[in-house]
């Protein structure tokens, strides 16, 4: 069987997709086995949300103050940074001193951002 490099490449990702779908298949299978043996005795009290044994208070779709949304913003910044670092990391020797200095500047700018957030006090909450 002769196959082109491209189809080999796509096939390696098809294997990934197959193995990934195994998670869903396994859960489905377990649920099916469980369906054969588990009891089903509906009572209205069973379907209340659990709040330490007392009846739920207020709306169940409650709102919460997400103090760390700012961390999510910082995360986006650094994650994009990581995307740019990896290609350089695989070719450090080829880029040599020039690439190294450029990466220093890049990391330095991002560290400045972190220091700024630090000084602004977003990394700790009252």
């Amino acid at each position, binding site marked *: 069987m002769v*196959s082109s490099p491209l189809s*080999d490449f796509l*096939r*390696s*990702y098809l*294997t*990934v997709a197959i*193995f*990934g779908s*195994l*998670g*869903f298949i*396994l*859960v*489905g299978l*377990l*649920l099916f*086995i*469980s*369906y054969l*043996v*588990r009891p*089903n*005795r509906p009572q209205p009290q*069973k*379907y*209340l*949300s*659990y*709040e*330490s044994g007392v009846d739920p208070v207020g709306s*169940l*779709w*409650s709102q*919460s103050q*997400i103090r*760390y949304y700012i*961390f*999510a913003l910082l*995360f986006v910044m*650094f*994650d994009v940074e*990581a995307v740019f*670092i990896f290609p350089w*990391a*695989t*070719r*450090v*020797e080829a880029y*040599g001193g020039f690439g*190294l200095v450029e*990466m220093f500047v890049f*990391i330095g700018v*991002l*560290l400045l951002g*972190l220091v700024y957030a*630090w000084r602004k006090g977003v*990394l*700790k*909450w009252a």
Partner: protein
Amino acid sequence: MTPMLAVDWAYWQETLVKVGLGLVAVLLLTGAVVYLYLFKFVSFMQSRLGPMEAGPYGSMQLLAEVGKWLQKEDVFTENSDRIVFGLAPAIVMSSTFLMFVVIPAGPNAVISDLGTGIYYVLAMTSIATVGILSAGWASANKYSLIGGLRAAGQLIAYELPLVLAVVGVVIQVGSLNLQDIVHAQSDGAIFGWSGIGNPFIFTQFVGFMIFLIAVQAELTQSPFDMPIAESELVGGYQVEYTGIRFLVFFIAEFATAVGFAAVASTLFLGGWALPADWASESTMHWLGPIVISAKAVLLVGVVFWVRFSLPRFREDQLQQLAWKFLIPVALLNIVVTGTLKVAF
């Protein structure tokens, strides 16, 4: 595609065998780790015997537990978002399986040898965040919501040290592929001495420590277990889950522990390979899976040792540790490694 054995198989045959073997390996290792550490190791640390009734020394306890979970009623609370609530455990499980795809267990024993290797692993592990966040949200429960949000905040904060710690290894090898990383270690030499190859735990010790700390947090194991802090949040995002759906979260948690340990042993401890002088390539075909399993199980042991020894941090202390210590140190590690690589 390299055939796994000498026989030239069709793609579907090869995939079937690989997927089957991969599944068995993942579940067996997970079961072994649960029995070894969660049932026995912690019991001995707390001066008790642990399970003794089911099978010799309680070794069949996990099967008994699964049997119990199978018989539990499947409960959806009245206000929950049923579709998302039902899908969330499967998303977490799938993310765990996807991690194992590229981890090599021998010269050819890898489910799919992707060129993006370690980067792919790091990407797949973050899918679990989506599953956990949707579990917390879809439960329509205050504890779950807080737990889910805590988990999301924690997983993204520690994703960064994890990613940055790996860069040091990538700089040394010059490749993202995990097989290349393994070969670089087994064929390497420490100052010209090739007796034990060049496992990157020596040259990348800082990276290794950062990786282990970040893994501890990614697994939400104590001291980083605020998302499921039982004394504050009952069970965090798992509060409303019972029976099989809870079991899936449980399996995924321990399978992810095995996965991260296998990745860490591949990156820093030489993976499936022994030093090049010790064993021939043909021996490694059958010895490789044993070697990587042993390394991974030992590393999971370190995770559980820490888990059962240290008390829980506060949520803001956790974020500060990541942002003020681990990330700057990881960046410094990249700079130093890059400089040394270019200089020598």
